[in-house]
């Protein structure tokens, strides 16, 4: 099982209103630290039109990271592909891959916040269709084939052939979409282990039905991960931050759902709190190295072979973050090296 580190969204929040230039300077430093510690990759996250300056331009930030690192892979987790111009994105993907000498992992998601679609004049209900069209264009661009009926070809070509695409999969439909194309999957931090395992199975079944070879597909997942020498210290450091992130931010965007699949916002504070506690209890790996190893091995057992460890939360100091990253890299990662390999 490989471990990437995430997620960097460059947020200057109410509780930690740092200047954005400082946040970007830290992104470069954090990426260099992740590289030195041997993490596979560092992942960025996208939203737009939000008060805290959440990163809206992942490929631009990826170009910056390529200049700040040498060997670390750079991931988007995720770029909200239906909100974009696929011709511009296809060209950007090739450019990032060139600038990084083939170190780009291109993660894409549907996006869900109405106001982001609406600001761009795109209907949210068109997002699945736009995703499919954009994936077609990316496939053509990667193969050097025309991306318009008039015969326009994206140039430069990417270094990797092709750039790995990771499809964020929250729903069954998204998993099937990835499976029909044989693309990698990035499962959500809203999935518990059992649901993750079911989706891995669904992927293989769909691939088989579609005649797609799924033997090379990768199964990644987002997990809140924090490692400390003592369980109490880990919980004290990270759980209040995580709770505040889930309640404030995801409440504001209606990301979490209740047991009936109804999206949750600030108007139902008790249900929102319950959903957030469920994520913390079931979908996180927080504690001593032994605890985290056990939690991640459980994921490997259901077929997950890659984790984006969400250790970067808002308002940590860099020394706190680097200590947790170091423990994750040195105490946890070696124990997982042979897990989840096909």
């Amino acid at each position, binding site marked *: 099982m490989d471990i990437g580190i995430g997620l960097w969204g460059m947020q200057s929040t109410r509780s930690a209103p740092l200047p954005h*230039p400082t946040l970007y300077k830290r992104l470069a430093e954090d990426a260099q630290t992740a590289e030195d510690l041997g993490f596979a990759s560092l992942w960025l996250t996208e939203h737009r039109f939000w008060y805290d300056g959440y990163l809206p331009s992942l490929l631009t930030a990826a170009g910056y990271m390529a*200049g700040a690192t040498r060997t670390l892979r750079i991931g988007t987790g995720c770029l909200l592909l239906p909100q974009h111009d696929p011709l*511009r994105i296809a060209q*950007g993907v090739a*450019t*990032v891959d*060139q600038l990084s000498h083939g170190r780009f992992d291109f993660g894409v998601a549907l996006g869900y916040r109405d106001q982001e679609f609406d600001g761009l004049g795109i209907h949210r209900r068109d997002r699945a269709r736009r995703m499919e069209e954009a994936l077609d264009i990316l496939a053509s661009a990667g193969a050097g084939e025309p991306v318009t009926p008039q015969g326009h070809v994206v140039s430069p070509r990417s270094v990797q052939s092709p750039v790995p695409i990771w499809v964020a999969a929250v729903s069954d439909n998204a998993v099937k979409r990835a499976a029909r194309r044989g693309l990698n999957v990035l499962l959500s931090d809203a999935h518990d282990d059992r649901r993750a395992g079911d989706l891995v199975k669904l992927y293989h079944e769909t691939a088989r039905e579609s005649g797609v070879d799924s033997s090379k597909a990768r199964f990644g997942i987002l997990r809140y991960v924090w490692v400390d020498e003592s369980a109490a210290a880990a919980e004290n450091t990270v759980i209040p931050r995580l709770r505040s992130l889930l309640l404030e931010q995801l409440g504001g965007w209606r990301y979490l759902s209740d047991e009936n699949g109804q999206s949750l916002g600030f108007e139902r504070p008790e249900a929102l709190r319950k959903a957030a506690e469920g994520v913390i209890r079931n979908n996180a790996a927080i504690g001593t190295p032994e605890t985290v190893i056990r939690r991640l091995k459980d994921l490997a057992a259901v077929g997950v072979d890659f984790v984006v460890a969400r250790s970067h939360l808002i308002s940590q100091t860099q020394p706190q973050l680097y200590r947790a990253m170091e423990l994750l890299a040195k105490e946890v990662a070696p124990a997982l090296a042979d897990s989840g390999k096909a």
Partner: protein
Amino acid sequence: MRFGIGPFTAESHLGIGWTEAYELMGEAVRFAESAGFESAWVSERYFADDGYCPSAFIAAANLAAKTEAIRIGVMPILGLSHPLYIAEDSTVLDNLSAGRAIVVPINATAYEREAYGVSEAEYVERFRESLEVLFHSWSATPFSVSGRHWTIPAQLEGHVENSTGTVTVNPKPAQFELPLWMGGFWETGRDIAGEMRLPMVVGAISDNAALQGIWSSYDEAVGDSGRRTPRVLIRDVYVSTGDDPLAECGEMFRYQFERYARWGLWQGDTSDLAALAASRLIIGDPDQVIEQIAALDSEFGIDHLICRMHFPGMPLAQLLGSMQLFSREVIPEFRMPALPQQIRRGV
């Protein structure tokens, strides 16, 4: 006078591949930062067969990571994609470079417009409307736009209602006023620069003979406000102490204009290399280069000379040689009039 380097375009040409071209760009700009150049530039073209950089913001962000102080100039195509993407990329570039960004919107070619199904007449409208969106996006005030081409926010049926009726682009630029200099490479661009009193970048496709006309129309449009807008000029520059500098770089220089002609951005003759060079190229040993820049300066009063010193296919060593001479022998001459010879030559 201040000096910039670029625009870099990172095409694959004469055996230099794309990865190497981007690597070379980074090395050259790292060197430029400690060689007296104050800005570094990246331009873009879509769907070029030589892979001319299609993503100027991404390449510019890469340069920002490799440098500390040099200003980062980016020349994106405006008017094809939704302008909010350009607005967002600009503010992210400005923040990740700690306030070093300069944005110079440029015009699309017919081939690029064709990919987006945009006619020439429609393109001009889209360009103007996009510019309006950029200024709104970078301001601190929430905004709405009801244009012919873009409605922001769209307030589409079925979306959760946007009760404010506005959109706020975040993060805001690091600079309180993100510099937008107009790309004066087409008539509409020059008209807009004049109307809006924006600084204007000219050159690249315009030869020396055209500059007088371009700048006098601009001055007339801008009028006399008591404050002069900066004159920014792009010129191809090559410095060498060899016997025949044009022979060292002429084919690579010519290629750029063959390409412009193919793209319909420039009508001219590339067959007579000496004539093409004489009309626009700053070339020679340091003394000759100083003389040519001084002549342009005395005629027009140049504030910022963006030196395009990397011609497609030029190897890094050749570029650095030319930049080194320019840095040590040419730039100091324009820091102060009547610079003592002993300083330029070394005591």
